[in-house]
């Protein structure tokens, strides 16, 4: 069911003590540039900073799954479900303030005040066209998004779905921004686990069949930093699977 995982933290989050309990978060995420998306993103425009580090987590998951190749310009067949807790609020406040102050805001100022723009950008970058949805609802958005994706797979509505979540919480300085992503598919996948949601808890169970990865012995909870954030359920899955070892070349799409 899980083909790829991705986790990314903003530069500020990597220095935040709350993220220090998960070494994975300290790793710098390979920087994405417009050239990584030929024909899909205007090369003269930087990737939107208000979405950072969501595209990085999505790229990591898609590359891990072998669904996408950096620089190819090819789209991935599949659907996209995004969770956003508060990421659009700061651009929203900025937009409303500029209206109050009589400053004429530009189109992008409004677009990034909408939670759905995260999905619109990921859809464009990676060519995920089959379906796009954005779950909102604060920290619960990640659970809604993952549940939505699992339901769509279970009912056969879609075969491959990228679920990606962006979380923002206040920090001592700039807000702490974290993102997590999972590539989910119907049937056998590279990580031999079944994902299930029971209430607000995510459960991962090994599947009996052959899988492409050897899984680590025990599950660990996600970093404390992810508490009260939309990416939490995805991060829990990723933290359990991060120690999985590759058995052979299993990166074919």
């Amino acid at each position: 069911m899980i083909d790829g995982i991705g986790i990314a933290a903003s530069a500020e989050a990597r220095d935040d003590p709350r993220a220090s309990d998960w070494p994975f978060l300290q790793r710098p995420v390979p920087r994405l540039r417009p050239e990584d998306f030929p024909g899909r993103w205007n090369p003269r425009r930087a990737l939107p900073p208000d979405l950072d580090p969501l595209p990085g987590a999505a790229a990591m998951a898609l590359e891990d799954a072998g669904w996408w190749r950096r620089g190819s310009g090819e789209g991935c067949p599949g659907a996209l479900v995004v969770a956003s807790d508060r990421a659009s609020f700061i651009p929203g406040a900025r937009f409303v303030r500029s209206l109050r102050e009589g400053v004429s805001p530009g189109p992008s100022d409004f677009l990034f005040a909408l939670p759905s723009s995260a999905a619109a950008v990921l859809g464009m970058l990676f060519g995920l066209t089959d379906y796009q949805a954005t779950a909102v609802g604060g920290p619960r958005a990640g659970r809604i998004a993952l549940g939505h994706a699992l339901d769509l797979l279970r009912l056969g509505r879609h075969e491959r779905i990228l679920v990606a979540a962006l979380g923002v919480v206040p920090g001592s300085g700039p807000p702490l921004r974290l993102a997590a992503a999972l590539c989910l598919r119907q049937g056998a996948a590279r990580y031999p686990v079944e994902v299930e949601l029971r209430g607000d808890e995510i459960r991962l169970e090994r599947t009996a069949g052959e899988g492409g990865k050897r899984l680590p012995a025990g599950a660990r909870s996600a970093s404390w930093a992810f508490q009260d954030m939309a990416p939490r359920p995805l991060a829990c899955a990723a933290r359990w699977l991060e120690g999985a070892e590759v058995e052979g070349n299993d990166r074919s799409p």
Partner: protein
Amino acid sequence: MRGKRNLLGAPRAPLAVSGAGLVSAAGVGIESLRSALDRERSGLGPLHPTGEGPTGPWREEPLDPGGMGGQVPDAALAAWRGLRREDDRAVPLAALALEEAVRGPGEPVPRTGLAMGTALGASGAFEVLLGREGAEEIDVLGEPSIGFEAYLARLAECLDDALGGRGASPEPLSIFSMTCVSGLCALEQAAADIALGRADRMLVGGADTLTAFMYGGFHALSALSRSGRLRPFDTKHDGILIGEAGAFIAVEPLDRARARGALPAGVIAGQRLVSDAIHMTSPDIEGKAMARAIRGALDDAGLGANDIGCITVTAAGSAVYDRMQSAAVERALGPEAAASIPVTTWESATGHALAATGILGIVHALLVLRSGRMTPLPAPEEPDPACRIRPVTGAPRALGSPCVLALTVGFGGQNGASVVTSPDLAADIAGGRGGAP
């Protein structure tokens, strides 16, 4: 035909619509839309200052002097019996529609959940917060009134009250934000909740208010009409008119609805959402993704082009969206069908209703099925030659077949197609009649 896998995946089980509710610039209640369309009366007009208190945020001046749009009268929202002082305007807007959708004949349904779509939720809270002395932008992260969680929780409370006040939050609950197709994403989740046995009935809705945030956004996109005239499929168009609305439907399996004595107004027999993923605002003018959505929705329903009695479109006065929908219909159904199936809309009465649009399109389709006729669009002064579909103009037309294809577009390249049929046609299909290929 049913059960066949289509281009996009497995079909969805049909959903009977056992209740519907609407609050829009046309008025309160679904009959207000019917009446406005029958009388060719528009709820669009000059923007007025919103009132003080819960129907605000209060402002002394209109959002845009000289601006036009579709506002719900404050008095209609203030009259809602459940209104609290702290409520954002978005609460009564959605709650009035929700309550109407819950009403109706038939035995009560204990397991009733809520799935909601909204672009900005209770967006007036931003204006209230930033109006406070010394408020910083960062404060929005810690303000409970801002955010979709509080909005969903308040609407769940409203639903509980409408169901008789059991004091327990309805389950399951979900909320989506995907521009104008938000309500259709919620419907996708609601269908799954029913199919997977979590609920017997789901209330599904979409709502957005016309706050300074929303209006200012469309103004920043340079998308708004200055003439105040909605001119779909017309080279004389000068932009769109937006309106606030709350639209809700109650959905459940047809056999269960009939068994409990409900009177379904129609059946959502198929639905697909497909994205262009090419631009942050503009659609793919060739309509390829919308054509996929149309074919997928018809496959879901087990129906074909010959079964469609009418197409309803999102016709807010944007030439690119008019042309995209026209191209998509041609691409999906063929030029002959595109030139012969009548096309209508509801947006001349309400304006483009933001996240309420998808569910409002379904409510409108139910009205078309019930009345058996389509109301005319404003006649174009100069018909756009790039649009080769056939809008109803002049006088109402009779509906030839009890099947409506409802198209919903949202910026960011979002395309939704829903197939809404009469309950009898849905029962025929389920009984194995199948549709024309």
